[in-house]
């Protein structure tokens, strides 16, 4: 068992592991799990690696028209396009007679390629936005959790103050009761005092009378 305890100590603990409050006398799994979840929420999320960021930034925006893509296929393609432009008045005939299928195919391929490029670009933008939002959300969530913590602490303080006020109220009430009792007691004692004074006076008179009688 000693070996076991030693092994336990070797485990690298994140500082947060000690932040979880556990009431061992009244163990509550729901509360522990809630604290674990809150702790996970406050942990910063791993940032995307530099390579991923670079990869995302490599993708350039697509050209406006699919035909601009021809430029990427070299001067031959460009020349072909210019020739086709020159022969535009005859193009319906050329299309029909010479290479309609090739032309349609080429157009389709270019459009598809262009669409793919646009989708890739849109995806990259979306990823960027998502990662930005993710970071912002993580910050926001961290801030919110901090605010929640502060509010909860404030609530705890308010609760404590409430308790303290209640205690003070009780104390004041008890003091009033005790003072009233003391006042009544004082009045009673005063009355007793007066009675006793009278008794003393009376006894003094008797004493004097008795002394006189003895002297006579």
């Amino acid at each position, binding site marked *: 068992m000693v070996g076991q305890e030693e092994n*336990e100590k070797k*485990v*690298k603990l994140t500082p947060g592991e000690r932040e979880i409050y556990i009431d*061992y006398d009244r163990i*509550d799994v729901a509360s522990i*799990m809630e604290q674990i979840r809150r*702790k996970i929420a406050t942990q910063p999320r791993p940032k995307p690696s530099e390579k991923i960021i670079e990869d995302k930034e490599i993708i350039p925006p697509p050209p406006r028209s699919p035909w601009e893509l021809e430029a990427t296929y070299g001067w031959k393609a460009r020349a072909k396009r210019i020739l086709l432009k020159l022969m535009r008045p005859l193009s319906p005939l050329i299309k029909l007679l010479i290479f309609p299928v090739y032309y349609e195919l080429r157009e389709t391929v270019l459009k598809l390629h262009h669409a793919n490029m646009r989708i890739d670009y849109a995806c990259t933008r979306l990823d960027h936005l998502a990662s930005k939002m993710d970071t912002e959300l993580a910050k926001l969530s961290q801030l919110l959790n901090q605010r929640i913590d502060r509010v909860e602490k404030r609530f705890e303080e308010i609760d404590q103050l409430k308790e303290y006020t209640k205690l003070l109220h009780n104390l004041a009430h008890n003091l009033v009761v005790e003072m009233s009792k003391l006042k009544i007691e004082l009045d009673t004692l005063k009355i007793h005092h007066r009675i006793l004074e009278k008794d003393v006076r009376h006894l003094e008179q008797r004493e004097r009378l008795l002394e006189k009688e003895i002297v006579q």
Partner: protein
Amino acid sequence: MKVAFVVQRYGLEISGGAELHCRWVAEHMSQYWEVEVLTTKALDYITWKNHFPRDEEIINGIKVRRFPVVRPRHPERFGRIQNYIFENEHTIEDELRWLEEEGPLAPSLISYIKENENKYDYFIFFSYRYYHSYWGIKAVPHKSLLVPTAEHDPVIYLRIFRDLFRLPRAFIYNSLEEREMIQKVANNEHIPGEVVGVGIEIPPLFSGEQFRKKYGLDGCYAIYIGRIDENKGCLELFDYFLRFKEETSSPLRLVLIGSTILKIPSHPDIIYLGFASEEDKFSALDGALLLFMPSFYESLSMVTLEAWALKKPVLVNGRCAVLKGQCLRANGGLYYENYDEFREALGLLISDSRLREVLGLRGYEYFKQNYTWEIIENKYLKIVEKLEQEKRT
């Protein structure tokens, strides 16, 4: 009173699940009732091939009648039909075909129940999803009690079972979550049902120290006991455990006990011991820091109760409502729903020995309050007594 326990497989060779549950309950209730077991001749739960040659035998003092499986299950064909009904619009006939393919197809068992209905006062069916329960309950609905052992998987939503859940005289549930799920599926709140579960048999002799010596295990280890299967969440457990080790450099080891249908990752800290005897199993549990229960589908989890019986805490899959509910009710363990929660919960359990001790103790108290055999037997007796009273009035 004569009671028949009807179950898909029965025998000392079967070490877990509804079959073991049935055997234990039958053996314990035999002190109050005349008990018989009606089952098939199958041993293998994948093919249901006839294995036991005798029609009748006595096992631990209980008469067992066995009926032959007329057609073993063809796993590939069954998988095809199952995929079809789970993924497509289908009819009741398709579902009945699925049930027949699932098996164990033993029509003589159903015929026997029909013909000998008067010989028994009650039939207690185990596992709602098999052929014997569906047709057996349909044959004797007014005398049947069902121990559904239902898990939250797609099968529960099949239409044939919605009707089935409205037939028995009473239900014997394993957990509150199981009752809630079945009542939600079938709207059968009017049928009496008790949450009972099962007791645990703890062998008289076991020792964690001896287990450590026997297998040369030093240092701390967590344990998983049960079938090593993807449905049991083992793939996820391996992944989470290895990530945890990589991130924390924890010396914790993972010991696995049970039959496997998965390739276990080759890692020096994952130790697979295969099938173990009850003594070895309890010794292993006794020596462990905690028990992992990563299953997605459970109706009770007997091994979790076994861990609590030995005052061991558990770390369970929180996506299984039953396991999470049990942990929350018992306060006997933590749960996780993703890797972050797994890492934090396991880290906390490893680092805080007092927490482990208190969780284990709470689990033990929960076990004592709900799962001792005395309590289980009384619950069974009360249910039957209530049905008898209803019969008289």
